[in-house]
């Protein structure tokens, strides 16, 4: 069974600071997805990382994938309050892509 672990689970940070969320997974996969979830809302797709070494950036968020280390990172640059949400990573194992989600990282950016 594929296990996905995120850390930290909770992150409180000041506006303007940088931080990184980590996502480890237990077995081989070449695709990793990052989602954002606001309270009471559904999941919004942020990034799809399709290969080893892939890097994607959108605004203050940058995601990367190291398939050899089975590790993805989501880096937050100069955080702003609007980034407060829960961030999930998810991994699939090929066709018929059942997603395996991490437990989520709840980010609170304080003004």
């Amino acid at each position: 069974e594929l296990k996905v672990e995120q850390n930290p689970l909770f992150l409180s940070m000041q506006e303007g600071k940088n931080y990184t969320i980590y996502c480890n997974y237990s077995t081989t996969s070449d695709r990793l997805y990052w989602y954002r979830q606001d309270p009471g809302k559904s999941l919004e797709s942020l990034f799809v990382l399709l290969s080893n070494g892939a890097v994607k950036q959108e605004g203050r968020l940058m995601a990367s994938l190291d398939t050899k280390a089975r590790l993805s990172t989501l880096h937050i640059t100069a955080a702003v309050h609007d980034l407060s949400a829960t961030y999930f990573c998810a991994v699939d194992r090929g066709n018929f892509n059942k997603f395996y989600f991490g437990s989520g990282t709840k980010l609170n950016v304080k003004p």
Partner: protein
Amino acid sequence: GAGVSQSPRYKVAKRGQDVALRCDPISGHVSLFWYQQALGQGPEFLTYFQNEAQLDKSGLPSDRFFAERPEGSVSTLKIQRTQQEDSAVYLCASSPSSRGTQYFGPGTRLTVL
């Protein structure tokens, strides 16, 4: 364009009642997924359809859970004889192919009293 829609958004059931949750995927999406999300947790896979075929139901927690997608578009997740442990948010997602980004609906929050 229209995203994935789910109804009802909220459902309160007495223990032992049957419930039916509906999902309308994005038009033309062949793949449809159901997930269960407990409070403070990530979504957990329940079942997967490709068109009308249910290809994976390994995540359904018991035989009280049943899903269908008879015409390859709208799907219904049915839970019979609901139990308190069934309380969760049930998310539906669709995808245009057999692999790739899944687009999630707003979910149905089920509370079993």
